[in-house]
């Protein structure tokens, strides 16, 4: 039997506000344990939370970027459970009135665009960090109270690759909004997955497994792929599935059941009496809407429209906000009418340089004016395209101006006809056969002769000029 995979993702995103969600402790990681804390985030008796304005703003921005409906009434609830990384033994979260619902994200997967539903985006707070030792556990509350968003997708993803593409798109958009560092390895983005399999065509969902402990996008994809084959095997063997939580072990490349004694969770959600409700009216939403940056899809369309880029090229350039900015700056600064020349440089030589160095375009640290100068030398045929690529590499490495590197390399093309005539005369004398072939009408022979001149000039001759000169000489004679 064929099985269909159903995946939904739950992403927890740390917002990059200056301070925590409910107190003024600066968010600064890598510090001494328990140094970025205060009575409020430690949940000391008598303390009270007040929510961070900027966190709410960022959250609304993100929800709008995912086309979510912002709820007019939203409130915080307490999610009650005991755990030592949770100082109050409840997490401030949202239950029945989340900030936003019913959004979507368009992802590019396998050459097609697919729309993935976003169930809800809600506000909550992060917990602390535990270090487990042999007979005890150590608690550091520096991370406690960092503002989090929970982004829950619909079970619309149908393969591990789609899950990967969803996360990539999500990260791309969040990068544009600049509301989070979005780094899974550093924990600023965390992702849990729900996966189930069902016979192709079946309406009802299969028994779901919750996957945790993935530390990278690739980890998410690998864990899901492992689950697809594990669950397929079980189903095919006719074995019953149980709903469970499994942890991804990246080293062993397998998922392991968490086997928890605790039955169904009873979180006893109720409205947090320490926090007021939030009424988010249309005016506030439209004000925040105006603060939204141009998002990748719009930017791509504009690049196509304004600079005549192909969809393919535009898509590459808008993949990261900073790259798109860099590219657009270059294109706008480029003085010639035909912007395509600059675009070709960006997605050609520059992108190869960036890929080779595992950097983003903007991180190549190349001076835009110098790049334009370099392209100018090629366009006025002072240097060859090949030489220019070499100069580009050196420019990135040495930060020297293009003109200096061209001189150092002695790359200026010879377009001075008197100097070239001398070389051409010699070549004609030495290649009688080719000369007669050309005269007999074989144009290939001209290419050969030009090549010979280039060789003798150590590549510095301007091939276009050389061709013209040879043609004139042989036809005139």
């Amino acid at each position: 039997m064929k099985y269909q995979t159903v995946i939904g993702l739950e992403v927890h995103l740390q917002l990059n506000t200056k301070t925590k969600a409910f107190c003024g402790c600066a968010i600064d990681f890598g510090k001494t344990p328990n140094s970025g804390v205060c009575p409020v985030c430690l949940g000391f008796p008598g303390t009270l939370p007040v929510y961070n304005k900027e966190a709410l703003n960022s959250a609304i921005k993100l929800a709008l970027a995912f086309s979510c409906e912002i709820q007019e009434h939203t409130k915080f609830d307490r999610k009650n459970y005991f755990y030592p990384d949770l100082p109050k033994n409840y997490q401030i979260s949202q239950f029945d009135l989340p900030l936003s619902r019913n959004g979507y994200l368009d992802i590019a997967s396998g050459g097609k665009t697919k729309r993935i539903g976003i169930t809800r985006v809600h506000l909550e707070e992060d917990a602390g960090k535990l270090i487990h030792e042999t007979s005890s556990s150590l608690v550091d509350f520096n991370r406690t109270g960092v503002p989090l968003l929970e982004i829950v997708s619909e079970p619309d993803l149908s393969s591990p690759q789609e899950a990967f593409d969803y996360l990539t798109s999500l990260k791309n958009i969040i990068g544009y909004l600049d509301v989070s560092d979005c780094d899974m390895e550093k924990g600023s983005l965390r992702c849990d997955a729900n996966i189930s399999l069902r016979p192709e065509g079946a309406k009802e969902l299969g028994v779901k497994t919750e996957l945790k402990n993935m530390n990278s996008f690739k980890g998410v994809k690998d864990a899901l792929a492992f689950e697809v084959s594990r669950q397929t095997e079980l189903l095919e063997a006719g074995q019953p599935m149980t709903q469970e939580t499994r942890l991804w072990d990246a080293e062993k490349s397998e998922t392991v059941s968490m086997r928890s004694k605790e039955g169904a969770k009873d979180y006893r959600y109720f409205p947090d009496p320490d926090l007021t409700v939030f009424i988010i009216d249309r005016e506030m939403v439209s004000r925040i809407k105006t603060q939204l940056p141009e998002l990748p899809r719009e930017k791509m369309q504009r690049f196509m429209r304004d600079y005549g880029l192909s969809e393919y090229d535009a898509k590459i350039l808008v993949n990261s906000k900073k790259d798109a900015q860099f590219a657009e700056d270059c294109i706008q600064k480029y003085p010639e009418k035909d912007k395509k020349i600059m675009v070709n440089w960006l997605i050609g030589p520059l992108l190869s340089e960036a890929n080779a160095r595992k950097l983003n375009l903007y991180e190549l640290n190349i001076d835009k004016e110098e790049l334009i100068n370099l392209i100018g030398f090629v366009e006025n045929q002072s240097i060859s395209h090949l030489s220019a690529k070499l100069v580009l590499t050196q420019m990135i490495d040495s930060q020297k101006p293009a003109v200096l590197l061209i001189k150092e390399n002695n790359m200026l093309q010879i377009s001075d006809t008197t100097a070239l005539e001398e070389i051409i005369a010699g070549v004609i004398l030495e290649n009688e056969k080719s000369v007669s072939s050309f005269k007999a009408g074989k144009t290939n022979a001209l290419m050969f002769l030009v090549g010979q001149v280039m060789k003798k000039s150590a590549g510095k001759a301007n091939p276009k000029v050389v061709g013209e000169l040879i043609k004139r000489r042989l036809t005139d004679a």
Partner: protein
Amino acid sequence: MIDKETVEYVAHLARIELQPEELEKLSRQLHDILGFIDKLSVLDVGLVKPTSHILPISNVLREDEPHICLTPDKALENAPGKNGNFFSVPKIIE
């Protein structure tokens, strides 16, 4: 209404160990209290909005501006178990 098993379950949720005689007594008392509370069930509250905040204020927010944190010494001053700059708790066995 409330039986011993429920009281035991709820005590577990609340992380309170109860001795058998405590459980017995508490179950009896809670039964009485809930019996009294049950007089609420005669009211028709179908169309009534719940009040979880008595003050009609909303949108209370703070500026995203840092304050001064506690030093780790101060944060750990009251701790019954610590190890260096960490709070320390017994081993977590789920």
